[in-house]
């Protein structure tokens, strides 16, 4: 039956395991480079803008805007195949980073520029950050 669960991200990846660990406490984290001040997402060892190695971890308040989206209507994986149609979107999170996620809403209710807020889908080992449509 494992094929019918949402696929898990790699939970032991050295760059991103802290991100997924934080989700268990319902925290959406990103980083700020202490040298150049830019936001870093996904989290990693180094700053991709300046090569800085000191990064501060911060927590997002979980509000954002849909930058773009698509409605997936065909997928070969059993979990996603059973979930069709669903909305995948690039979310511009208010703190200033962009992340891929799902907008849990009827496809016709989603538009570019829509305000969304963070929600969690609890898979036990990890929580998946998804977004719900406001307005």
């Amino acid at each position, binding site marked *: 039956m494992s094929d019918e669960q949402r*696929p898990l*991200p790699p939970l032991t990846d050295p760059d991103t395991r802290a991100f997924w660990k934080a989700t268990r406490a319902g925290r959406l984290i990103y980083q700020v480079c202490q040298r150049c001040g830019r936001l870093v997402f996904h989290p990693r060892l180094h700053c991709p803008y300046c090569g800085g190695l000191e990064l501060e971890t911060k927590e997002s308040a979980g509000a954002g805007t849909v*930058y*773009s989206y698509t*409605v997936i209507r065909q*997928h070969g994986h059993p979990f996603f195949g059973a979930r069709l149609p*669903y909305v995948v979107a690039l979310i511009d999170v208010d703190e200033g980073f962009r992340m*891929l*996620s799902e907008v849990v809403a009827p496809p016709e209710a989603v538009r570019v520029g829509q305000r969304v807020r963070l929600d969690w889908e609890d898979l036990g080992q990890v929580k998946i950050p998804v977004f719900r449509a406001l307005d």
Partner: protein
Amino acid sequence: MPRDRLAAIAGIYEFPRRIAGGLSALQIKALSAARALEDAGLGWQDVDALYDAGETGAGLTLTQYLGLHPRILDTTGVGGASFEFHAGHAARALAAGRARVALLTYGSTARSDARAIGTGGGRAPTAPATGMEVPFGLTLVGSYALVARRHMHQYGTRPEQLAEIAVTTRAHAMRNPEAVQGLHDIGIREVREITIDDVISARLIADPLRLYDCCIISDGGGAVVIVAPELARDLRQPPVWIVGAAEAVGYTENDNDITTTAARDCGPRAFAEAGVRPDEIDVAMIYDSFTITVLTILEDLGFCAKGEGGPFVEGGRLRFDRGRPALNTDGGGLSSNHPGMRGIFLLIEATRQLRGQSCSQVPGARLAIAHGNGGQLGTRHAAGTVVLAAGGT
């Protein structure tokens, strides 16, 4: 007028079938290499530079399999754009005298293997960035759809305008007997020209992209032989000169505009090196994984202003018989063949055009570009532009 002639495409071969019929990808590569060298009038052991995108394993696999002893082995693998990267690298190596005969090969049995490239579950992620995306079920088509949706939002681009690209490439495919046979062989029910209505009423795959906005999936392969300038004059075919080449990479950042591709970076550099302008290009071979890929790249290469790709392509403007530029005159990935990485076919058809050998020949074609796009446009992609000029230019 183009400036420097870096090197010349001297031999080409496109594997004609879209179902390989039991041949392996390596066999398609070997067969294509033999035919392309024959086309050039060169021998097997004349090859001293080998370029491989790695679709059949690491570069060592191909070198030993072919039985070559190259002094240059370049295994740049950036998806469908690999072959434009290879052509650029080879042109510079040959121009610098580091080798004399470069061989590029491609082989794939994607169709026979029933690989659902655009909508499959995908491979296990190997990079942190892709790992972050695993739980959300974005397909490859969906990645391009993110770009299409944003382009529509930002510029008012309409599905009917994207459809123009699918209609034009199908019209070109119907003039290409190998493409027509291929469409039959991969099971397309009605092999005919299509209309804008056909495209915009087909089923959605990932909004706003519909069935005909997406390339087909086929087997296939081919080979390209590139030679140093001093060899080019004496070979079997008229030389097609590489006069400019550049490459770039684009990916999702915090605030980038995903409607602008890496072509905006490498295109102008390739044109500047060649000393030509986009409006001088007779044939534009642009990687048509999806209609939106072509639309954004036309803009980013400077064929029209950013955001004006929709109006630019209207009215069948990109057909081979309508003036400059003609788009994907072999039928493209949308309607001729797409075995996963079709960048090599862009070089092959551009060469045919500049030799005067295309099924949809642009009369008097002198200048062409091959622009490859690899990866996933909405998340990470590679872009390579090669500017080509006909022999007497």
